[in-house]
Structure formats: C-alpha cells, structure tokens
C-alpha cells in the first residue's frame, strides 16, 4: 500500500517533488507555493472548462477563413475547412486537421468533465485509467492550436491584393481562446486528488 505525502502529514511540491512539513508555505528548493490539496481546485477546473465551452460555440458558428478572389468570395468554418480538405486535398492532412480542431477539443471537454465527475463517483473508472486519461489530456490539448497557426500562415501568405486574399475570421480568435481556457482547466486539475480516498 502506497503512502502519499498527505497521508504522512507532509506536503509534496508539485513542481520539484521535495517534501515539506505542512506549515511551510513556499517550497524551499524551488520556491513554488505549496498546497497539500487546493480546496478550490475543482471549482477552477469547472470555471475554465465552462469558459472554454462558451467560446467554443462561436468558434464553430463563425468563419475561420475569409477567401476573396477576383470572381468569388467564400467563407469557411472549422468543419467546412476540414470537409474541403477531404475533397480536394490530402486525406492524411485532412485527418490531422480533423483530429486537431474537432476530435481533440470535443474529446478534451468530455475528458475533463469526466475526470472532474469521477473524483466524486469513484466507481466510474479506476485510478490508473484516470491517471492515464489525464496524461493524455495534458499532452494533447496544446496541439489544437494548429488550426490557429494554419490560419495565420495562410493569411500572411495569400495576399495578392485584388487577385486573391485570405483573411482570418473571428472564429480564429475564439478558437484560440477556447484552446487556452481548456489548457488552463487541465492545468488547474490536481492529478494527486485522483489517488486520494
């Protein structure tokens, strides 16, 4: 049976792992603030999660790319852009974009909510699986930013004044915010609580 620092009446530093007595406020090795468990941690997770979800709605409704050529003017949303890539472009690249801008964000909302809920309802998932799920969420979340960078590159590259221009749509900003907020939600989650009884 493993003993946690908390069980032993001590506080472990989440930055550097050194162990302190419970009355110490700052880690003496790395200077990070110490807390055995943050009582408001879960509330912060939900707040960032909700903020991320709210800005994810306009990110999907409004256009990501505004393309203007001599003859036509078109707007593409996130889903529209992926569909277009599947039709005209490389299927592999389409899969990357599909994964980064649809599967990862949606999966991340579900996974973070599920982790937060399963802290209360222990029977949903065992600790090893929760731990692995959190590791995946933490690792994969930042990759959603790909779509924002693609828009930035296209908009800076395709600038042939009257002939063809690509401009970023407002969805790029809300999508970037959504990625940042859900990254914050994942970082506010204290994985140590997965193992507490």
């Amino acid at each position, binding site marked *: 049976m493993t003993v946690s620092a908390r069980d032993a009446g001590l506080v472990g530093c989440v930055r*550097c792992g*050194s*162990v302190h007595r419970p009355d110490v406020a700052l880690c003496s090795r790395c200077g990070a603030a110490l807390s055995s468990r943050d009582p408001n941690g879960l509330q912060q997770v939900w707040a960032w999660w909700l903020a991320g979800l709210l800005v994810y709605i306009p990110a999907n409704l409004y256009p990501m790319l505004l393309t203007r050529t001599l003859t036509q003017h078109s707007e593409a949303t996130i889903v529209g852009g992926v569909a277009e890539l599947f039709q005209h472009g490389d299927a592999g690249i389409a899969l990357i974009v599909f994964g980064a801008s649809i599967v990862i964000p949606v999966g991340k909302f579900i996974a973070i909510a599920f982790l937060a809920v399963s802290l209360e309802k222990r029977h949903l998932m065992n600790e090893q699986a929760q731990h692995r799920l959190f590791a995946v969420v933490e690792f994969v979340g*930042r990759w959603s930013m790909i779509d924002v*960078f693609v828009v930035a590159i296209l908009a800076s590259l395709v600038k042939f004044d009257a002939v063809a221009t690509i401009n970023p749509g407002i969805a790029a900003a809300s999508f970037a915010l959504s990625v940042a907020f859900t990254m914050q939600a994942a970082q506010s989650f204290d994985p140590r609580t997965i*193992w507490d009884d």
Partner: protein
Amino acid sequence: MLPLAAQSLITVPLTELRACPHCDALHRMPQVNMRERAVCERCGSVLIAPRADAFTRIFALAATSLILMTAAVFMPFLDLSASGLHNRASVLDAALAFSEGAMVPLSVAVAALIVVIPALRLLLIMYTLAPLVAGRPALARAAQAFRLADRLKPWSMAEIFVIGVAVALVKVAGLATVTPGPAFWAFCALVLVTVLQDSFMDKEQIWQAIGADVPSPDGSRP
C-alpha cells in the same frame, strides 16, 4: 523504489523523501546512476533519470536553438508564387496576420506562443545552467528562473507551428507554388534540437544541482 511503511517515516529525514508530483506517492530517494531511472511505484511517472554531462549538453542545445530561432524570425520563411505574382512571408508576418481590428490580441498571443515564450524558456534554461556548466555554484535566482521555464513549457508551441506550416502548405498547394526559405529549415531544425534537449532534461537532476537550499530535516529553512 521502496514503498514506505507509515511507521518508518519518522526516521527518514525530509531531504531524502520525494513526493511524486503527479500522484503524491511518497518515496525514499534511491541512489540512481547515470542512464538509470527511477519511476513512481504508483503511477509510473519518472522521478529521476540523470544523464552524464546533461548540463553541458542542454546548454549547448539551448544555445543552438536560440541561434536557429533568431534565423527563423529574421530570414525569409515562405515564398508564394502564382501566375506571375509573388509574395513572401516571414514568421513575424504570420504572427501579425491578425493585426487588423479586433484581433490584435491574437497577434500578440501567436507571437508569444511561437517566438517569445520559446526564446524566453531557452534564455531561462541557459541562465540556470551556465554557472553549473562552468563549475560554479548556481546564481541566486536560478530556482526562480528554472521554475518559470518549467511553468511556461506547455505554452511553448514552436513545434506545433511547424505542423501548422505543413498543413498550410498542403492547403495552398493547388493554388500556388510555395518555396520554403532558410527560416523554414531553421524552424524544422529547431524542433529537432528541442526534442533532443528535452531528452536530456531531468528536472530532479537540475533541482538537486541548483538547490543549495534543500529543506532541512525539521522542515525549516537553513
């Protein structure tokens, strides 16, 4: 790694204990030789994995990255030509793509994610390791610098930007010819160097080297 029975804790000085940063499992720090690693017995996270000459290597790779980053920012990045028309964009242009109207903050954020934060992390790591490489004690603010570098890690997105470039190239491939410039190759090299640098980076090894100020057994500062 030895699991600790609760009753034996009293005898172990705090300096020899480590709590897994991911699951809080308490361990007594074992002696780990170079190229060996110790993992948390509960969640499997790596607790320590020291590498020989790690500081020199990380410092050299960080310096390399910084030079590549400078090249990537200032040299031509991509060159687009379609039916006689030409346009070239630098990395800075890509960051400034959102600089019209309400999206200015996004420009700032993109510049931060792909250039400023990665460069800042490199500088912080070099500041932390430079004295150690030269065989001197760490600078006074080394712990602060290294902690900030660690905290900024998820927000350093240069490698994601490179994949973004690949996707963008496919998207415009039908419309125009894109020629990658020197900055493009510098950015690709930067990603490889960063991966290599991360493979030498063992936080516990660095904290042990910086931490003159290790918690004393009674938990108070020395």
